[in-house]
């Protein structure tokens, strides 16, 4: 009969418990990180597809005669982006667009900005100033919630992704 010294009893169990806990946390962390990248990738993709779609929306279905994107136009973009996000299981994101223009390599307007270089609404159109390139930006923003309640990483993070294309109808 094996005699285990009293002070060694349960040591393997405790070692196992500690290591398995670490192992599980690490494994869940890998899964969580993988999903976070996947979702961020999807959101960036959806924003890009939305911006590309917005850039080629045409009058009169989706723009007024000043080439300002109208509500049906925005709804079309919003539906496209929402459907793409739903395919990745992402819901509750806020989608908005900004029509702008610029002369050079400046960053696009912030996602919270309202349209600058606004083409105006019909019939008082505002022409894009000479030398400017018109752009349309689609922003997708919202909270990404973690699946697992892991220690030290909180419950999620805020995602803001935008894509900007030349506004081809202006």
């Amino acid at each position, binding site marked *: 009969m094996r005699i285990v010294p009293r002070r060694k009893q349960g040591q393997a169990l405790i070692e196992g418990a500690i290591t398995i806990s*670490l*192992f599980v946390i690490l494994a869940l962390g890998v899964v969580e990180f993988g999903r976070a990248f996947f979702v961020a990738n999807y959101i960036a993709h959806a924003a890009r597809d939305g911006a590309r779609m917005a*850039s080629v929306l045409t009058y009169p279905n989706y723009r007024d005669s000043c080439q300002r994107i109208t509500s049906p136009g925005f709804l079309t973009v919003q539906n496209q982006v929402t459907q793409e996000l739903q395919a990745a299981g992402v819901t509750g994101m806020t989608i908005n667009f900004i029509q702008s223009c610029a002369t050079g390599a400046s960053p*696009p307007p912030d996602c919270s900005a309202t349209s600058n270089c606004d083409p105006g609404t019909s019939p008082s159109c505002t022409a894009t100033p000479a030398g400017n*390139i018109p752009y349309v930006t689609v922003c997708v923003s919202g909270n990404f919630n973690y699946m697992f309640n892991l220690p030290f990483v909180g419950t999620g993070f805020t995602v803001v992704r935008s894509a900007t294309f030349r506004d081809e109808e202006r």
Partner: protein
Amino acid sequence: MRRTKQGGFALVMMGMWILALMALAALAIDVSRLAYTATEVQGVADAAATAAVKTATQGGDYTAVAKAGAAKNRADGNYFDVDAQPTLYALNPVQAGTYDNTKAPGVDPFAAGPAPWNAVRVTATAQHVGFIFGGFMSALANLVGGGNGSIGTNTPITKIATAVCAPPLQVPPDLPITVCAGGNIQLHLFQPGEACDPTQLGTISPLNAIPNTQDACWNDLGTGTTNPSNQDLLHLFPPDCGGNGAPPLAGDGETVDTNNGNHVNLFSNLKNNCVHPPPYNGTRDFTIPVLGTCGACGGAQTIVGFVTIEIKESDIKTNSSNVSTFGSCNVPCGPSGCPQGIYCAKQVCNPSGTGTGIGTDNFGSCIVRLG
């Protein structure tokens, strides 16, 4: 004694396992990040190419516009501004050329070359995409392999995008009017890579007197209304011209019902409500289908392309007053006078300002596509 020596062995083993798992996790995170950054760089290339192609077809500084378009998008944490961050980002080369999708499969349809251009190809590179765990992975590799190598700290990511200015496949036409490519209406047919020369464009005159000439027809835009009334046709006008909603999409190869009909009131509507008001102030562009068959209007005909025409208010004749000539291009009216209609409509390069494109039925309308 033996048992004492074995104490903590499981802990050591598990420690090694966890180290291996951490290495895998580090690898997974870095690879995920590289994949994500690759998506971003592709987005930058797409934005740069689509922005530049319109400028290239107009003969402008397409490289500057490609840079500006790229700088509006992020990759690897910053805006892709190649002038402000030349060590991090590069757009090289930015090539203008011609895109011909009739090339055989496997042959690159894009060929860089001298103007005229209808396409732009952009190669975007994020030159130093860092590994988050590069140091850890190198140390681990050295520990396990016993060497002194390194997997490095970063890698370049390159993506290519080609944008082409091509004829539209499907558009919502602006007016329920079609023209045919032959007969009295001499539309200029653009060849692949041909730049827009305004002097080459056709003056569509007379686009008039339906049914006195049979080069233009009223049509139902595919709604199946074979004998449309004034009201039916008015419904197909743009909303600000009296239409009651968005016209249906029409595309190359689709058939529409053509019709003569005495719809003179529509010319008054076109002039007074469509072309005259701001922001058009008397000159407005319309994109309409082009039919392949000239001859009697009536029955189904096939759309072979689209043309954008510029109509001037002063060129719309809304009454039957007898004049010797009419319109800005002075159409001789002859003994029977000029009937109501649209005269001297000008083929324009719209909406991109170019007539370049691919395919065989390109009358000047063009949209940008990623090729």
